[in-house]
Structures are given as C-alpha cells and as structure tokens.
C-alpha cells in the first residue's frame, strides 16, 4: 500500500500546483483532462475484467462510461477550438501513476484487488478534484474549456462519494 500512496502523494503535489507547474495553458489543460480521464477508464476496464464483486464491477462500469463521455466532449471541444493537447509534467505524472496502478492491480485478485482498486479510486478522485479547483479551472483561459471543467466537476464529486461508500462496504466484509 505504501508505494502507491507515495505515488499518489507525488501526483497530488504536481496536480495541486507545485511552483513549476502552477501555470498551465489551455493546450496543457487539454492533455491533463484527457490523460486523467483515460487513466480511470483503463483502471475501470481492468476492474470489470478482474473483479467478481457486483458493486465493484458496477462502479467500474460507471467510471468507464462517465470518463469516456467527458473525454469525448473534451476532445470534441479542443478540436473545435483548434487546441492541440500538449503533454506536460502533470499529464506525464498522471500517466505514470496510472500505469503503476495498473501494474500493481494486475498482481492482485479477489478481495485484495477490490480494496486496492477502490482505495486508488478514492485517492485519484481526491487528486483530480484538487487539480480541477486549484489548477485547471483557474488556469483555463478559453471560456468554453473553463465551462466544461465546471460542468464535469460535480461528476468527480459524485464518483468520490460513491468510491468512499463502496470502500466502506468492502472493508466491512
């Protein structure tokens, strides 16, 4: 548990806007949004494949559907705006943390898998909400991109509440 949490903490620092990454432009925000959503879609796909717990599978399916939907909308918007997503330290860190999470989860099964997946979902959504509030919404200069971020933020809140409730039910088993 310690290594992923450290990774999560490092990502949180990056997302929360450590000085070097405090300023992000719209092209970088686009890359962060797409990566953040894709990372959770990928984790969800693994959970659907591996978990045998209906509530976990249902949650994972919701993550796939919602984050795919957000990514399609974000991609359509930045394409229309002529913004090319630009990789940056925050998006790279998200990708790396996502890959590490998948690698760790692939070694787990059963209840250990469920708990590790959902614990990471709690940490991930906390980080992304902090990034949306602290970095992405304040940094977005295009009004439509800012509006999209504002519009999707409540979904992350709902996912976080759902993940916490699910984690509570798993730890009671």
């Amino acid at each position, binding site marked *: 548990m310690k290594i992923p949490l450290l990774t999560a903490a490092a990502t949180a620092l990056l997302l929360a806007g450590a000085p070097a990454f405090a300023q992000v432009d719209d092209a970088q925000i686009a890359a962060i949004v797409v990566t953040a959503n894709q990372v959770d879609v990928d984790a969800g796909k693994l959970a659907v494949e591996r978990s045998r717990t209906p509530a976990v599978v249902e949650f994972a399916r*919701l993550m796939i*559907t*919602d984050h*795919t*939907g*957000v990514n*399609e*909308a974000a991609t359509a918007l930045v394409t229309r705006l002529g913004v090319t997503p630009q990789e940056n330290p925050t998006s790279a860190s998200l990708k790396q943390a996502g890959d590490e999470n998948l690698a760790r989860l692939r070694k787990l099964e059963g209840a250990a898998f469920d708990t590790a997946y959902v614990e990471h979902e709690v940490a991930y959504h906390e980080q992304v909400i902090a990034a949306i509030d602290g970095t992405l919404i304040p940094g977005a200069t295009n009004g439509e991109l800012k509006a999209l971020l*504002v*519009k*999707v*933020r*409540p*979904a992350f*809140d*709902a996912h976080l*509440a*759902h993940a916490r409730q699910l984690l509570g039910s798993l730890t009671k088993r």
Partner: protein
Amino acid sequence: MSALAARRLALVFAAAGLLLVGVGLAAAAAEHAEPRRHTITIEGNAFRPDDLTVDRGDTVVWVNRDFYPHTATDTEGSFDSGTIPANGSWSLTVEASGELRYFCTLHPTMKATLRVQ
C-alpha cells in the same frame, strides 16, 4: 342625467364587470385544465429545478445535458426512466397526485422532488 338613470347605468357597468370577471375566470380555468409540458434539465450531476410542482395530466421532460448517462427513478418505484443518454431526453405524463422523490440510480447523490397536485 336623473338619479335613477345614473343608478341604472351603474348597474349595467357592474353587470358588465361581473361578466368580464366571469369570462376571465372561465378562461383561466380552461387554461389550467390544458395539460402543460415542463422541462427538468440534468446538468452538472443535478436535476434543475430539483423541486417542481405540476398538475395531474401534465408532461414532464427530463433533458440530459451532461456528457454521460443518467436516470430519473422514483424511490417508490412509480416511474423509472431507464438510462437517459448524453443529450437524450425522457418524458413522463403524471397521472396520480402526490409527492414523488426521485434520484439517479447511476449517481445516487442526485436527488429531486416532483410534486403532483
């Protein structure tokens, strides 16, 4: 004008006034009886408005403006939209009066009330 003529004139005006009020009330009643169409927008993981009062026979349309699916599902089971896709909508003509509390089965933090009178 004599006092009598003046009183008769006043009566005529009063009667005409009553008639107008009556016509107005009838028109209002007729308008009220016409089923209306209400829209509830789903956006930012919320039902807007989250508390709506309608009359029996009215139609309520839920329009999903989010980028992912939602449902509008009565907690007591009297109605269930099923999945409303992104940019999709679902309508319900309400037949029974009462206070209907509903939520999104996919995002249970989304709750709202429909009052049917």
